[in-house]
């Protein structure tokens, strides 16, 4: 390596796709601040690290926390996927994907397997995540105890003391009223045996996917100004009782489009006469399966069975 020659001007101007913006919108000082919060969040799994969330060019509730986390980790070589309730084609997902295409000029995809960074609102993709992928959650209310104890000073103390009796009382009251734990989304989890964490309003169907996941999971709450994380291969346990063990919801039918079972389904109202269908909430999973089915049908029609003669 040659020593730098001070006579040579080395200033390289970073030009991003969106002229006038820094790469991925945020300024470098903000990115550093968010990055430091992410590093501490990884070192203390499940602990909510306060950070100085910025105003973003989108309203709170549209994923300002997730967007800031994504902007801080994103590099020019990353491939971004954004999902909203599992779908790649809804308003929130489309607008965030376009935001990063415009400000960072990065590649985007709808394929889970091809993405290096996946920003999600309220679902975890059905396809298993891999090492090297980062899942960024948009979180509205990061504090799992907030609806039980409104004071931040108190909830912070409860986390410091690992005093989570309140949460168990809440789940117990579910059982007393309904005969079972009636919490179906934002179902509280215990991370690495220490902090109780809100997995964001994902259906509890997705909770088992957080456990021992090969991908890094980052959570950003913009309005509440908190970042937290689950490192890869971390024990994530959904809170429950010995006599009322944690169970995910099951559907009594497969996806009406691709026939997938053991996936999370959305109910789609078809008409005013009570017609409805249940389809995969994960649009990429559904399309991938439909594509495979079509491919197989084409091969059969062409006489190719995939077997060597």
């Amino acid at each position, binding site marked *: 390596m040659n020593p*730098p020659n*001070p006579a040579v001007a080395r200033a390289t101007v*970073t030009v991003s796709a969106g002229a006038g913006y820094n790469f991925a919108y945020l300024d470098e000082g903000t990115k*550093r601040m968010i990055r430091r919060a992410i590093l501490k969040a990884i070192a203390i799994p499940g602990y909510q690290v306060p950070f100085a969330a910025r105003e973003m060019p989108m309203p709170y509730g549209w994923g300002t926390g997730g967007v800031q986390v994504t902007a801080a980790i994103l590099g020019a070589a990353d491939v971004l996927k954004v999902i909203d309730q599992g779908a790649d084609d809804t308003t929130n997902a489309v607008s965030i994907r376009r935001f990063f295409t415009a400000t960072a000029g990065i590649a985007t995809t709808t394929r889970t397997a091809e993405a290096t960074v996946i920003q999600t609102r309220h679902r975890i993709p059905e396809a298993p995540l891999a090492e090297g992928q980062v899942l960024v959650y948009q979180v509205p209310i990061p504090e799992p105890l907030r609806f039980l104890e409104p004071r931040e000073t108190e909830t912070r*103390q409860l986390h410091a003391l690992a005093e989570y009796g309140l949460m168990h009382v809440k789940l117990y009251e579910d059982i007393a009223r309904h005969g079972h734990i009636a919490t179906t989304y934002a179902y509280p989890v215990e991370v690495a045996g220490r902090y109780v964490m809100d997995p964001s309003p994902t259906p509890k169907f997705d909770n088992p996917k957080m456990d021992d996941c090969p991908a890094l999971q980052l959570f950003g709450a913009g309005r509440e100004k908190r970042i937290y994380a689950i490192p890869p291969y971390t024990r994530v346990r959904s809170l429950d009782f010995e006599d009322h063990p944690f169970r995910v919801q099951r559907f009594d039918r497969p996806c009406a489009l691709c026939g997938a079972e053991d996936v999370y389904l959305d109910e789609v109202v078809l008409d005013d006469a009570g017609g409805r269908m249940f389809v995969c909430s994960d649009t990429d999973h559904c399309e991938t399966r439909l594509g495979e089915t079509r491919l197989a049908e084409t091969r059969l029609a062409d006489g190719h069975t995939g077997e060597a003669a």
Partner: protein
Amino acid sequence: MAPTLAHGFADPVHAGQAVFRAAMEALSRPGRIRPLVTALVPPAPLTPELAALALALTDADTPVWLDAPLRADPAVAGFLRFHTGAPLVANPGGAAFALIADPARCPPFTDFAPGTPAYPDASATLILAVDTLSDADGRDFAEQACARQVFAGPGIRGTAPFAAGPLPADWTARWAANHAGFPLGIDCLFVAPGRLAGLPRSARPVDAETVPGSDGSAGSEALPCTSR
């Protein structure tokens, strides 16, 4: 002739992002070594990797503590002050980041901020420039004093053997005490030429005897701390 100031990142945006992603991967997969490539040529004894992490992570909001060899040459402080704007503090307890060029004489962990029970994130990150690093692949050992341990915990599938050197003789005891204080504690990033590894406070040292080759290489015998 007046000494000239060494360059910072040629492309601060993307170089900073690449160094951060390496640090993020290192801390989220403790004990696994990954490449850290930088073109920086900072004033010695500040290594290029130490400088890269300092430029990527520190700024006016983060007090930085330098160990004795780094303090000895004012060019190091000048380089860091100019490129990061970080206040350099004399008291390690007040530092968010500590840059350590002589890891064998790393001060006791108790000298650094461990955070508070309410805010465990208000804790120090130590960046140590070591000579040798070794992970599950067991490469690159010198005859230096290596602190060799097997870790488990968040970010680790099964167990992960990890060694770095030179480190103080009581390093394993220090780390055990650091982990025992979880969620309080300090986090470490280790840099060697071209390489980086991390140990967050969540990394739990496991007795190598109790995990006899759980993944075929976890036993301490698989990691000879000798020259090849």
